[in-house]
C-alpha cells in the first residue's frame, strides 16, 4: 500500500547564530534586547529538506506544514517558510519559554490531530542546545526516530525511509517504517534564499494562530526545571612567550607544576 507524505516541520526562532550571546544582568538568561533573531539554522535545513522532497516527488507529497511555538514575532520566520514554498504554517502563540518536554507534548497533540506521518525537525536549537524535542516527540507518539540525518531517502511506495546519520567516526544508515520523526544535521543540505517576489506575495498573509489554553487544553505545559543561574564560562588567561628553557623551568616551578 502506498501512502502520501504529510510533513510537519517545527521551527524555532532563536538568537542569530552569528551574534555572540551575552549573559543578562539578572543572570537568568542571555541579553535579547535589540538582538537579531532568525530561524534556528537546523530547522532551516529541515525546511529545505521538506521542500526538496516535495520538488523531487510532487505526486507523493500531500502537504508540507511549518509550525512554531513562541512569541508573536515568530510570524517572520513562518512567513519566510511560506515564501520558500512550504504549503501552510501555524503559530502557537505563547510568551513563555517552554521546555523541550512541553514543546514535544504540544507537537504530539498537533501531529495526532492533523494526521501528519513525517516530522522533519532540526536536531537541536542553537539557543539552549537541548537536543531533546525530536526524541521526546517520537517517544510520545510511539514512532520510530532517526536523529542527526545527513541523507534522507524514501522508498518508492513512501512507506519507509532510509536515513543516514552522522555518528562518531563515520555514518550509520537506518531504515524505518512511516510514520517517523527525523531530525536534521548540518550536512543534509544547504538552505535556499527567499525569493523577493514570493516574499512580497506572502507579506500580507495572515498567519493562523493557535492558543495553548484554547487549542491544547489537555496538554500540561508547566516547566519542570528551575534555572538557578546563567554564567559566562571562565576565561582562560592568555599564553606568554618565554625566551629560553631556563625561564620555562623557573615559571613551571613558580606555578608548582614541577
Amino acid at each position, binding site marked *: 500500500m502506498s501512502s502520501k507524505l504529510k510533513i510537519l516541520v517545527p521551527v524555532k526562532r532563536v538568537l542569530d547564530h552569528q551574534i555572540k550571546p551575552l549573559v543578562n544582568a539578572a543572570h537568568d538568561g542571555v541579553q535579547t534586547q535589540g538582538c537579531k533573531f532568525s*530561524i534556528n539554522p537546523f530547522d532551516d535545513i529541515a525546511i529545505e529538506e521538506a521542500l526538496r522532497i516535495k520538488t523531487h516527488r510532487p505526486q507523493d507529497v500531500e502537504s508540507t506544514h511549518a509550525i512554531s511555538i513562541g512569541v508573536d514575532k515568530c510570524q517572520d520566520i513562518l512567513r519566510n517558510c511560506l515564501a520558500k514554498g512550504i504549503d501552510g504554517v501555524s503559530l502557537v502563540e505563547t510568551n513563555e519559554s517552554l521546555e523541550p518536554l512541553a514543546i514535544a507534548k504540544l507537537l504530539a497533540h498537533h501531529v495526532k490531530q492533523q494526521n501528519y506521518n513525517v516530522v522533519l525537525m532540526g536536531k537541536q536549537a542553537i539557543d539552549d542546545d537541548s537536543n531533546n524535542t525530536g526524541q521526546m516527540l517520537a517517544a510520545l507518539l510511539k514512532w520510530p526516530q532517526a536523529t542527526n540525518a545527513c541523507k534522507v531517502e524514501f522508498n518508492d511506495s513512501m512507506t519507509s525511509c532510509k536515513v543516514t546519520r552522522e555518528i562518531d567516526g563515520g555514518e550509520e544508515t537506518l531504515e524505518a517504517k512511516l510514520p517517523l520523526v527525523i531530525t536534521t544535521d548540518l550536512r543534509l543540505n544547504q538552505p535556499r534564499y527567499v525569493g523577493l517576489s514570493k*516574499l512580497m506575495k506572502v*507579506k500580507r498573509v495572515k498567519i493562523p494562530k493557535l492558543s495553548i489554553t484554547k487549542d491544547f487544553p489537555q496538554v500540561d505545559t508547566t516547566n519542570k526545571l528551575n534555572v538557578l543561574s546563567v554564567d559566562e564560562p571562565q576565561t582562560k588567561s592568555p599564553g606568554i612567550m618565554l625566551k629560553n628553557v631556563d625561564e620555562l623551568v623557573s615559571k613551571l616551578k613558580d606555578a608548582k607544576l614541577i
Partner: protein
Amino acid sequence: MLKFSRPVVKNCKQLLLFKRCITNSPIIKTTSYRLLSNYKSSDTPLFNGIGAIRSYANTVKFTSEVYPDIHRNDIYKKLNSDDLEYFKSILSKQEIMYVAIENDLQELDLFNEDWMKKYKGQSRLVLKPKSVEKISLILNYCNEEKLAIVPQGGNTDLVGASVPVFDEIILSLNNLNQIRQFDPVSGILKCDAGVILENADNYLREHDHIFPLDLGAKGSCHVGGVCATNAGGLRLLRYGSLHGSVLGLEVVMPNGDIVSSMHSLRKDNTGYDLKQLFIGAEGTLGIITGVSILTQPKPQAINVSFLAVKNYEAVQKVFVKAKKELAEILSAFEFMDQRSIQLTKKHIEKDTSFPLEDEYPFYILIETSGSNKAHDDSKLETFLESAMESEIVIDGTIAQDETELQNLWKWREMIPESSQCQGGVYKYDVSLPLKDLYSLVEVVNKKLADADLLGEAPKPVIAAVGYGHVGDGNLHLNVATRCYSKEVERALEPFVYEYVSSKHGSISAEHGLGFQKKNYISYTKNEQEIKMMKDLKKHYDPNGIMNPYKFI
C-alpha cells in the same frame, strides 16, 4: 551555546587554500611558512581577508625584466655592508630581514611581489621597525646615503605602488601595530599606521563603533596604507572619503623629521591642511606612522538585498529610487554584471550557493544600516515592493540572517579574487559619469574581440567584467586573463585611459597610480597640477628616495 558552522566560513576556506599552497608549489611553500612565522612574531591574523591568499601563482617575473625600458637610477646608492651594520645597530633581529645571496631572494617574495602577482622587485632588505623613532632614524640615514625606500603596509595595493621596482629597501609597517587611544564620546580613534584594518574595526566594534571604511582586503591592509593610498571602498557612499574622516596624521618625512597633526580636532581652520597632502600620496612624500580618524557609531540594524535587473539603465533607475526612498539608511549600492558573477560562480559556488535561481544581465547589492530595525525593514520592504511591482527589479532576495547577509556580500567581495585566479587580471578602476559608466566594459570587450584576444583557451583573455560602486560613479573593469601578455596590455592601454579621458572621467577612482598608471596621470590631471605636485615632491624629498619610479 553551540558554535554553528553551516557555511564554509571565510577562514576555513582560506585554511584550505593555505593547505593547498603548502602542498603544491615549491615557491609558495616559503611564502606560506613566512606567513606563518609572521603570525607568530607579530600577532597579525593569518587567514584573514583576501590579501593572505596567495595561492595561484605562476612564478612572477621581475618588473625590471618585463619593463626593460625602465632603468635603475644611478643616483641611488646600492646597499653595502656599512649600511647593513648601521641598520643592525638601531634595529633588533626581529626587525630586519636580509638575504645575502640571490638564490635566497624568494624568502622575501611576500614583500617583493604585489598581490596581483604582476610586479616583482628585487629588494634584499626588509626593515620592520617597531617604533616611530626608529623609522625616523632609518629615513634620515637613507636620505643622507641616498638609499631608495618603498614604504609598505599590507601590500594589497593594486597598481604596483607598494613593491620595489629594483632594489629599493622595503620599509614594512607590520610591527607598528598598536591602538593608541579611543575616545568613545567623540568617536576619534588614534592608532599606529600598521594596525590591520579589520583589527581596528573589531576593536572599534567592541566599543560600539565602526571604521568609516571597509574594503575586500580588510584582513590584510593597514590603516596607514589605506590613508597613504586614499582607499575608497564599500562605505564611501555613506561616510565619505578619507579626506574627510582622517583628522590628523603622524608622518616621518624623508629627512627624518616627525610631523604630527594627531591632535584631532573636527574643526581646525588655521592655514594649510597639510595632512591632506599625504592622503593619496602613495608614500612618495613621507611615511605615515600614525592615524587619527573619526569613526562612526555601529549601526544597530543592517539589511542586505541582492537584486537582478535587465540592463544597465535599470541599475541607474534603482539607484535613483534607492537614494530617494532609502535615503539616510542606504549604506552601500554595488552593481555587478553577469560575467563577473559567472567568474565568481566558478570560484566560490561550491561553498556558497548562489542566491538566485536564474542568471540575469546585471545584479545589484543594496545595504542599509540604521538605528532601528523595524523602521529600516519597513522602509526597505516598501522600496523593494514597489521596485518589483514596477518591474525595474525582476528578481532578488533579502538576507534572512547574518550568515545569508555575509554570503550575499561574498558575491560582491569575491569578484576581484575570482577574476584573477585563472592566471591574471588587468584592473582598471575609473570614475565616469554615471550614464557612461558601463559603456567602458562594452567597448573593451568589443576591442578585445576585434583583436582576437577574447575567448576560450588558448586566447589570452577570459572576459572583461565590470562591477563597482554606482553610488560613487566608480567602475571596476577587470580583464580576467589566462596569463599576462604584452599583446593584451597593448590592446588595453592607453585605450582605456583615452576612453575615460574622452568622457571626462578619472583614470583612477580609488586604486591610485602607482607603477601601473605612472605614465597616464596626464589623462586626468592638467599640466599645472602635475607641475605643482612635482614642486612639492622636490621640496620635501629633494633626493627622491621615497617610493621612486612610481607616478611622480
